């Protein structure tokens, strides 16, 4: 079926006679490992409707679906390892029919995340505030879920930072003041340490940096390093180098998830220490004492024992579960509001930090209630508004207060942040209900709208792309090389009118997947303020706005009619497709959709498993979705399901593979 399809639609331009774009399909080898790149390229082109080109005969839609499914199966686990490529697996193949068995995850190394590195510093004790410590790690700059295992290595600039940090940390650990006792006693050059003292120091550093005791072999090697250093420096210097070396060990900077535990038919359980780290770092940024202890005592060796600890951690208010909010931040990406630079508005305050804080709080509020979480996130009618928490000096109790307060002496008639939410004053009851019918859920929070805006305008294309990716589970090819995306700068037209440039047939192939899903958000301006008209330049009035000598007195604006309509098309669920009159109608429709909920589950899988799903993960995803639905929409239930799944607990026995290379890192 594949061959005839290629012959009918592709070979004329990508065959023996002609190799358009240096690409040919007639000489595929039949070996999936060798053909993978080309199969993936073919699939992507066909999926996106880019090939065959418009002037050629259209292939039968049923054939297209069959080809996509066939190439997906054929390329198996090779498909899309990079962040942002998760949706390359068609949704129907994951949720279309009940899946029989849940797959394990291949053994892997996972470099500490930037926040994980900060957690590592806190585990080392009092030293996190040391001046001069620099964050060595970064994640890919793209939006979305991106801290994947196997993706990042440590490159040279990062290693240099790690070396300097280790030096500074040990400097603090060995200082007379606030130093680590076992280390400080070794700092007198006049009395060289005994072997027992050195062993104790290594053991202590292992405990703090790695959460475990060193093996006999480790001790010998580190003492050997000490001896070598002693030849070129005094004993305190040699001790310091030895202590630094522990901090830079491979297993301190990379989480090992190789599956060193018991064998269970072609796959192995994570060893207790691997599992303890995996669970701690799934939910927080540092090792959790209780779970490390359980691992040491051998009480972390079954799925049930893992589940006990996951539930305990989820219910323990003292354990800082930073990775829950982080997931929602990466899924929605509203925190990018901080990176969109805007000129200071004259009539109101724009403070993205506060907008993001408000949305953070709203997310945590909904997650804490833990009911119907996904739908609530999309459709809640309440919002935190310029909200912060401070201590009431009289009662000594925490209470809500305005976050950003304008200085009355310095204020030239500016409105506060409340105005952005459509309120004229700060509501004492929070979360507050917003003025009727204005906004729903996270996608109509000012923070999200700003995150998906440019310096001067809304960004309906990227808003639509978000909906396509993160709710509908579709994908849009990257901007073709050589296309400089430019919306004409015509200040007399509405943004919707200016965006009609994308309706050109060449552009529309991709833009049809985005623009109509983003245009309903034109309901808001690019600061996230609700509006009913759009302010544009009035050319005629501006031309007439001159003084007696004909000199211009400046631009004049007018209010243009606002159109908030859009269309859901090609969603993969016929019930969803159709026109929508405004963003609220669109979002309500999507929030009720089974498909969108499942796509949300797919994103949670990627975040907590640190990789894209493959076809073999269908059962894990279906189980997680079922756990969520049967618990009345509990995010906790979803997490317990994912974190005790075979994919989380088991590692497939490694098969040597040469087809993948780790991605870039910094």
């Amino acid at each position, binding site marked *: 079926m594949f061959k005839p399809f290629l012959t009918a639609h592709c070979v004329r331009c990508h065959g023996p006679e002609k190799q358009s774009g240096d690409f040919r399909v007639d000489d595929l080898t039949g070996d999936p490992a060798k053909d993978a790149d080309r199969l993936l390229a073919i699939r992507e082109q066909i999926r996106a409707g880019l090939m065959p080109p418009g002037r050629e005969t259209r292939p039968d839609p049923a054939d297209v679906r069959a080809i996509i499914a066939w190439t997906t199966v054929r390329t198996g686990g090779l498909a899309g390892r990079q962040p942002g490529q998760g949706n390359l697996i068609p949704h129907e193949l994951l949720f279309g029919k009940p899946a029989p068995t849940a797959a394990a995850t291949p*053994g*892997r*190394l996972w*470099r500490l995340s930037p926040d994980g590195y900060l957690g590592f510093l806190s585990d080392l004790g009092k030293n996190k505030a040391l001046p*001069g410590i*620099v964050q060595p790690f*970064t994640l890919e*700059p793209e939006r979305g879920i991106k801290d994947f295992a*196997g993706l990042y*290595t440590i*490159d*040279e*600039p990062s*290693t*240099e*930072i790690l*070396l*300097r940090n280790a030096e500074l940390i040990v400097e603090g650990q060995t200082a007379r003041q606030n130093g680590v006792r076992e280390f400080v006693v070794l700092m007198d050059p006049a009395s060289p340490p005994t072997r027992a003292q050195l062993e104790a120091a290594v053991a202590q550093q292992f405990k703090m940096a790695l959460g475990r005791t060193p093996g006999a072999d480790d001790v010998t*090697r580190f003492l050997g*390093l000490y001896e*070598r*250093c002693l030849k*070129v*420096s*005094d004993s305190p*210097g*040699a001790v*310091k*180098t030895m202590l*630094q*070396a522990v901090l*830079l*060990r*491979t297993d301190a*900077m*990379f989480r090992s998830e*190789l599956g060193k535990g018991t064998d269970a038919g072609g796959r192995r359980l994570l060893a207790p220490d691997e599992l303890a780290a995996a669970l701690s770092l799934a939910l927080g940024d540092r090792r959790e004492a209780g779970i490390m202890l359980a691992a040491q005592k051998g009480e972390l060796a079954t799925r049930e024992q893992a589940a006990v600890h996951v539930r305990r951690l989820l219910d323990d208010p003292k354990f800082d579960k930073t990775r829950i909010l982080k997931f929602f931040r990466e899924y929605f990406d509203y925190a990018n509001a901080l990176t969109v*630079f805007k*000129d200071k508005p004259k009539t109101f305050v724009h403070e993205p930090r506060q907008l993001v804080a408000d949305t953070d709080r709203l997310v945590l509020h909904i997650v804490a209630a833990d009911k119907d979480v996904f739908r609530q996130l999309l459709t809640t009618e309440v919002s935190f508004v310029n909200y912060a928490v401070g201590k009431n000096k009289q009662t000594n109790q925490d209470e809500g207060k305005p976050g950003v307060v304008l200085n009355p002496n310095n204020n030239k008639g500016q409105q506060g942040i409340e105005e952005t939410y459509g309120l004229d004053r700060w509501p004492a009851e929070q979360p507050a209900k917003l003025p009727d019918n204005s906004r729903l859920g996270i996608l109509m929070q000012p923070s999200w709208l700003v995150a998906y805006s*440019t*310096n*001067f*305008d809304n960004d309906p294309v990227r808003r639509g792309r978000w909906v396509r990716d993160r709710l509908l589970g579709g994908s849009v090819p990257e901007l073709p*090389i*050589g*296309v*400089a*995306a*430019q*919306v004409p*700068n015509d200040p007399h037209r509405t943004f919707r009118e200016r965006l009609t440039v994308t309706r050109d047939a060449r552009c529309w192939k991709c833009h049809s997947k985005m623009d109509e899903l983003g245009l309903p958000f034109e309901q808001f301006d690019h600061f996230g303020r609700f509006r009913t008209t759009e302010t544009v330049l009035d050319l005629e009035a501006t031309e007439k706005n001159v003084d007696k000598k004909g000199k211009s007195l400046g631009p004049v604006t007018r209010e243009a009619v606002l159109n908030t309509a859009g269309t859901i098309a090609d969603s993969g669920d016929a019930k969803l497709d159709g026109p929508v009159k405004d963003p609220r109608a669109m979002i309500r429709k999507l929030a009720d959709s089974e498909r969108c909920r499942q796509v949300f589950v797919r994103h949670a899988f990627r975040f907590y498993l640190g990789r894209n799903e493959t076809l073999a993960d269908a059962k894990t995803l279906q189980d997680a979705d079922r756990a969520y639905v049967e618990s009345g929409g509990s995010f906790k239930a979803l997490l317990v399901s994912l974190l005790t799944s075979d994919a989380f607990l088991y590692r497939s026995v*490694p*098969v040597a*593979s*040469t087809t*993948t*290379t*780790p*991605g*870039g890192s910094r």
Partner: protein
Amino acid sequence: MSMTRRDALKGMTLSAGSLVLAPILARLQAQAAGAAIAAKRFVFVVESNGVPPAHIVPAGIKREPRQQQAGGPSSLLDVPLADKDLPMSLEPVAPWKDRLTIVQGLSGRVCGGGHSNNFQALGAFGAGRGNGGEGLGIEGETIDGALAKTVPGIFPHVGLGISKRLDNSIVYNVSAWDRNKGLPTIVKPDLAYSTLFGSVANGAAKQEFAAKNNLLDFLKDDVKRAESRLAGAEREQLGAYLETFETLRNRQSRLNEIEHTLREKGPVASDKYTSAVETDRLDAMFDIGAAALVCGLTNVLTISSAAGVRDFDITFKGLGLNIDKHSIGHGGSYQGKTWADLYNIIRRYHFDRIAELCRKLEKVKEGDGTMLDNTVIVYLSDGAESHHSRCWEWPMVVLGNLGGKLKTGRYVDYPGYGQKGHRTTANMYVTLLQLAGSTRESFGMADPGLKDLDQHGPLAELLA
């Protein structure tokens, strides 16, 4: 010095290089075996907030403001600078007027524009956001990264600069080694000093240096042990980590070779290193950067004056200007000085620093001439031609002729966007690459708006 360096290169095994450095080492070994390596150095000074084209026109040349659209002058303007007075902000480099080229009329429309073009400025690529989007995406190498691979020094690239945020140590803003691989800009002078000159920083230097070698050897061994237990992708992942230790170990050896030079010619640390005043820190960075060039630590230096969208609105309090660059960009005045005055005062300060750098390089003999003879300094803004750039124009000032390869002492203004003979920033970067010995004909992304023009090749008009 060059003899020992060449010998060291010849003796260096290929496996000792990092993945990316391996081919470079191979080529260097070839060079070391044959002809002497002619030193070539490239310095980029990137100042935020745009360079309005009118500000760098010498007295006596009338330049019509260009419209923000295709069209404009249809011919190239090429005027000798010899009998012209430099504009106020460029006066500090007047002693090198014969080596100066003021380049106007290049465009960079593939870049997003906005307050800063970030990596796009030196990369001549788009980062996926039109309409002044200020994208932070890194679509490929930037010109300083590309040159670092072409003329690698002990440190292939040194990025120094200032950030408006004092707590920053390192930022990623304008330089990149490759797609999604930013090169760091160190923004704390004390950190820059210890990175580049730490090996000879104090009396215990010898000990620390040797201790660091022990540490690196140990860690190399540690990674190798872990690696030996892995296969496939995981093995490669650790392999990359291992290579960094090997690269650093090699660097240690090379620093060891030039220890004497570093002691003799390294910068003297001062309290400017930790100053809260922006100009103090930038002074210090120019000082450290100059020393890095003089000591032979690097051949490619980028000095970023608060470039990048996160820092561009810095305030130059050290110049007595209590107004941030963003406000200046919006026409703000300060104590009777207009926005244009303020732009010029700040730019002149940068050219004072550039002049100082030239003096330092001129003092060092090299071959038949001086170090300055083998150096080219490019001044530009990540904000192209204005506060809200659209990149229809991208003014640049080029100082140096690389041993006479550039025809200098001129004011060159290219035809307007889309006109025959119009050229882009990518052509400027190709020029620099070819000067460095590369044979590349293109750089970055082609501008689809110029599909009727040949966008390949160097700026032939600038070559001798």
